[in-house]
């Protein structure tokens, strides 16, 4: 009995592999393997019914891997050939012959039932997927529409405030100036929100394009720091590029990378106490380039750590005028460029960082010149 059981286990292991090999285009050798499996089964005392059960199991597993209908039909035909070859040794005895036919009939019926059930499951999963896609499309269309519809009035509001602030409408008294500053600041916030919403929708719907090319990390950071310096200066914050590895390059979309750095730097400046310095640092580590942005702010509250990269996430203690989308966009952008984002925080010191694989392929001088990164969107 123990010998039969061990032979059955061996059969259950070997049969699916051999069947798969034959169905995937195996020739005479694979078919010979079927005959050998059958002979081995007869010798070990494995019954036809057990053989049929093993075959059914292996075939269903194989068919469920198939997607194209024509492939399924072809495969089912090949599987029958394989099983018939396995049955040949059983037919050498009268009892075996009868059993083989009965087993084939039962197996065909069982197979039909199981395949129908599997097909139904597949269809309902497909319906569910289609419904999900429809909802997703509706959401994207809605965000897109809202974003466009909001942009037109916002262009007027923001534009008018921008012109007033430039002094085009004459000088205001201090109270008027404070009111104008507040209105302008908040219209900027709205502009950011609308832009961020659209960016997020593009990332999620896969319509955001990434033009990846090797970029020099140091020059990228220098430009990012320079671009954010003015905004930080208004808050009394200085941004310093402490170090960056010479010659290190990463394969990224320059504009998207600038967006990532702008987000991190503006966040760091926003949370820094006045007169403090935000430090940017970059270094190589095991084929990775890590870029860190460190501020001297109050730190990320512990209960917010798990949600910090989620959409519209802002700590309860924070009222700094963000859209609540910046970090989730940053994370999505970096991940689209094969990177990883993280942070470490304690009171008085928070570091946001991202890791990107270092680009090491040697390129010609001409190509390198082409890759000079240009700022601006």
């Amino acid at each position, binding site marked *: 009995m123990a010998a039969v059981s061990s032979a059955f286990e061996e059969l259950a292991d070997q049969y699916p592999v051999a069947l798969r090999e034959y169905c995937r285009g195996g020739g005479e050798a694979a078919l010979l393997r079927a005959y050998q499996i059958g002979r081995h089964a007869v010798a070990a005392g494995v019954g036809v019914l057990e053989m049929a059960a093993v075959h059914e199991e292996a075939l269903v597993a194989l068919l469920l891997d198939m997607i194209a209908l024509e492939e399924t039909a072809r495969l089912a035909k090949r599987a029958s050939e394989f099983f018939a070859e396995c049955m040949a040794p059983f037919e050498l005895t009268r009892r075996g012959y009868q059993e083989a036919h009965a087993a084939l009939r039962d197996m065909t019926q069982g197979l039909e039932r199981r395949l129908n059930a599997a097909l139904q499951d597949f269809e309902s999963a497909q319906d569910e997927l289609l419904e999900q896609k429809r909802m997703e499309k509706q959401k994207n269309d809605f965000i897109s529409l809202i974003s466009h519809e909001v942009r037109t009035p916002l262009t007027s509001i923001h534009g008018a405030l921008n012109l007033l602030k430039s002094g*085009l409408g004459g000088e205001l008294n201090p109270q008027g100036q404070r009111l104008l500053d507040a209105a302008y600041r908040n219209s900027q916030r709205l502009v950011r929100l609308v832009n961020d919403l659209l960016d997020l929708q593009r990332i999620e719907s896969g319509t955001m394009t990434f033009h990846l090319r090797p970029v020099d990390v140091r020059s990228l950071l220098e430009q990012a720091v320079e671009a954010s310096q003015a905004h930080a200066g208004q808050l009394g914050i200085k941004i310093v590029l402490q170090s960056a590895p010479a010659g290190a390059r990463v394969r990224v979309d320059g504009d998207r990378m600038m967006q990532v750095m702008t987000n991190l730097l503006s966040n760091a400046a926003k949370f820094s106490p006045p007169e403090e310095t935000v430090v940017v640092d970059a270094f190589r580590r095991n084929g990775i380039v890590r870029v860190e942005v460190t501020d001297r702010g109050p730190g990320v509250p512990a209960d917010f750590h798990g949600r910090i990269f989620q959409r519209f996430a802002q700590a309860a203690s924070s009222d700094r005028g963000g859209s609540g989308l910046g970090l989730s966009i940053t994370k999505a952008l970096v991940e689209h460029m094969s990177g990883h984002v993280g942070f470490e925080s304690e009171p008085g010191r928070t570091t946001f960082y991202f890791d990107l694989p270092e680009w090491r392929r040697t390129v010609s001088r001409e190509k390198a010149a082409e890759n000079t990164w240009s700022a601006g969107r």
Partner: protein
Amino acid sequence: MVGRSLKRILLVEDDPDIQTITSMALGSFGGFTVHVCGSAAEAIQAAAEFRPDLILLDVMMPGMDGVDTLRALREIPETVSTPVIFLTARVQPADVAKYKELDSLAVIRKPFEPTALVETIHEIWTRHRGEVH
């Protein structure tokens, strides 16, 4: 058109408030002569006489949209090769690709900072002149 300096701008924009703000910024900070049109029909009518150096073109307009307006302007001898910048809220990648195909110089996304508009236009203009020469 090559070698011509940038003085006359045709602004095609249906929203009256954006017309005011944009033309004010272009006039006050850039010293440009600006002709404002509220629709494609107006622009097509005015183009030949005004002979702009540059056209700033909105996309979402009632009636003929910006894309078709550009095609129509290309049929007019005076604007057959006048540089065009789209000034629009429609900046999905597919839209931007379409504007590029239409041989526009650039796209400026709404909302924009009017105080920075002149500088942006000058940058685009200078780059374009460099490419032409």
